[in-house]
């Protein structure tokens, strides 16, 4: 017998966006249920936030009285920086709402108990005209929303992966999933659903994102008929370790981030400081998209380091300065980064003599599920909020703005979904759809030992994504990737199974990977086909054959929809309310003529 969990509003995802959505829905008198692939407060991307949450500096000054806030700033100026930073691909109506609601997001966190004195500090990252980053590291804000979720008596179903949405009469009426700890199949029946599952960064081998961000939300929304936009713009962060193994994919903000105060020099294996070819004035202190493209060019053209990165050197600084480099930096972003005692992996002495090895890593998802400013998708009953939504950041996100996005848009999705839910009639799900989805989910387990293990295929997919659909894209590479994706889809996916002897239903990672793999493949296909269609370079999507930003012809959203079981693409004009894009083709990175 399958357990059916009845709820007025199902929120998929438990962290910044999902928790905010559930809290706001509860405040609007609707009883939400959170379902999460991990454990609330111990999963998702929010807890990994390094530093700040963007709010216009004037509000930080007037409303929050934060040190370092600058009253010369305005919401209009924040809007302009976001649109320029996003290379005019942002939905400007969404950006207007975003900058308007940003102070509410910070206030909400404080109301929920985020440690206000700790937040009394403002960071100024590149791309922002004024200092807008209220200090909000993940571990400081996570307990605040977890407490509020408990206070609002929100039901939380943990360690449960939602695999698909249920639809009836053209509406979303619930979801199905797998209890990862027991292997039990779960049915959720709901009047409305909010997807708050974050990005799909795990399709890449190098990513700062946690393990569970395999793009499930994009995939389930797509299969349920929702449109997605700008999926060719996963954003890369220039600077994670590729060596030693324990630090692989760990970012090093104190060295390479544009938020860092000290900069290592990036060198290729010829010892050349290659940024001189890309940004001769700003060198390593340029925006993250350009840095990433430059690094990846060196790596793919064979001028990289032994472990697949480039070199980051501090040898231009006197030794006694390197020794004290970290003394005047916040310890949380220096040698005690995350939970690491970095010195156990990289010695400070070594840093004076030797370069580090670094590469770009997938850090954030600019594109996503298409929403209105009221967080609705094109499928009635389906809402999306946070990183999983598209249109906010355009082609590139400014530093500190992901935290803002997850709280602002989580709250909005919760509010509008609650309003919908309180008016909607609860529909039944279709038994036939449930049966079909249950069979699909169980197949890799039932075919134990008879098929292909997802473990090597996942690595193969990540390698393909990295080399052909990563930071640097060529026409030939994208075409090869698409035919490879087609091959895996046809020849491998139907045969995915756990290995012989591995039929446990208790947290069986191989089974989970078999369920995630088709989602990852689908997301990779969206990135590859979107990138191939876009014949220009803009923000996080760099096409080698089309190195300029084609503002007159390509200031367009790529819209993905499932039509008769086919992935279709079309373009639509970007929503422009205030700031018109440049009228000429410009060199990559430029936003004014």
């Amino acid at each position: 017998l399958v357990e059916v969990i009845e709820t007025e509003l199902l929120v998929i995802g438990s962290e910044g966006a999902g928790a905010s959505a559930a809290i706001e829905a509860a405040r609007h008198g609707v009883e939400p249920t959170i379902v999460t692939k991990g454990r609330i407060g111990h999963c998702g991307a929010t807890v990994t936030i390094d530093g700040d949450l963007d709010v216009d500096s004037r509000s930080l000054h007037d409303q929050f009285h934060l040190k370092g806030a600058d009253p010369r700033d305005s919401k209009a100026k924040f809007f302009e920086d976001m649109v320029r930073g996003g290379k005019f691909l942002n939905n400007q109506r969404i950006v207007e709402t975003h900058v308007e609601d940003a102070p509410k997001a910070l206030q909400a966190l404080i109301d929920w108990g985020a440690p206000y004195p700790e937040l009394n500090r403002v960071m100024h990252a590149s791309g922002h005209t004024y200092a807008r980053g209220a200090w909000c590291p993940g571990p400081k804000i996570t307990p605040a929303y977890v407490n509020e979720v408990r206070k609002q008596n929100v039901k939380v179903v943990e360690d449960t992966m939602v695999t698909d949405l249920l639809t009836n009469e053209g509406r979303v009426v619930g979801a199905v999933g797998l209890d990862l700890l027991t292997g039990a199949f779960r049915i959720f029946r709901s009047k409305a659903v909010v997807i708050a599952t974050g990005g799909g960064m795990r399709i890449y081998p190098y990513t700062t994102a946690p393990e569970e961000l395999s793009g499930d939300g994009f995939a389930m929304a797509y299969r349920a008929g929702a449109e997605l936009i700008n999926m060719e713009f996963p954003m890369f962060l220039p600077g994670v370790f590729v060596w030693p193994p324990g630090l692989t994919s760990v970012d090093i903000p104190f060295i390479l981030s544009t938020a860092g105060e000290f900069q290592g020099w990036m060198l290729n294996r010829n010892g050349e400081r290659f940024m001189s070819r890309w940004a001769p004035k700003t060198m390593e202190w340029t925006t993250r998209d350009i840095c990433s493209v430059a690094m990846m060019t060196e790596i793919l053209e064979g001028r990289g380091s032994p472990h697949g990165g480039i070199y980051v050197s501090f040898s231009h600084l006197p030794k006694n300065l390197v020794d004290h480099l970290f003394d005047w930096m916040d310890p949380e972003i220096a040698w005690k980064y995350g939970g690491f005692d970095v010195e156990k992996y990289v010695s400070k002495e070594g840093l004076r003599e030797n370069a580090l090895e670094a590469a770009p890593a997938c850090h954030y998802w600019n594109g996503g599920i298409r929403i209105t400013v009221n967080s609705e998708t094109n499928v009635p009953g389906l809402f999306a909020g946070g990183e999983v939504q598209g249109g906010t950041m355009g082609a590139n996100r400014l530093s500190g703005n992901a935290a803002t996005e997850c709280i602002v848009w989580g709250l909005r999705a919760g509010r509008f979904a609650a309003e919908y839910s309180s008016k909607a009639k609860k529909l039944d799900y279709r038994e036939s759809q449930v049966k079909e989805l249950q069979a699909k989910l169980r197949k890799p387990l039932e075919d134990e030992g008879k098929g292909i293990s997802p473990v090597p295929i996942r690595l193969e997919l990540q390698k393909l994504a990295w080399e052909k659909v990563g930071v640097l894209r060529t026409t030939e590479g994208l075409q090869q990737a698409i035919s490879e994706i087609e091959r895996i889809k046809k020849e491998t996916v139907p045969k995915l199974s756990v290995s012989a002897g591995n039929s446990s239903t208790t947290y069986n990672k191989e089974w989970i990977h078999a369920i995630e793999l088709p989602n990852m493949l689908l997301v990779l296909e969206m990135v590859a086909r979107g990138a191939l269609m876009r014949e220009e370079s803009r923000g996080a999507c760099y096409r080698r054959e089309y190195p300029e930003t084609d503002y007159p012809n390509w200031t367009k959203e790529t819209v993905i929809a499932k039509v008769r079981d086919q992935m279709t693409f079309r373009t639509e004009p970007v929503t422009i309310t205030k700031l018109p894009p440049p009228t000429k083709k410009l060199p990559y990175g430029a936003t004014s003529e």
Partner: protein
Amino acid sequence: MSETKGTSERVIRVRVMRGYDANAKERIYKEYEVPFTRGMSVLNVLDYIYTHLDHSLSIYYSCRIGRCNACDTVVNGKTAESCTAPCEGDMTIEPIALKR
């Protein structure tokens, strides 16, 4: 998690608790041989086993940077965060629940 590249320095022996025999009242362990490189974390070692030696070894983890505490485990009798704890050689790994 991405592949651990580079040449290994030596092979280490890793004993992992895989279950509990209720009749014999004994913990069940399985031993694996893993190529070791300095700078590997405990999680790197477990991931190597899952990827290359035994797909049935499921490891519970999330952020990999010491923030979420999902990957806490018991290494040589001491609680450790497997993603940030450096591997120092042969080891015995048990689930955290035993410690609690």
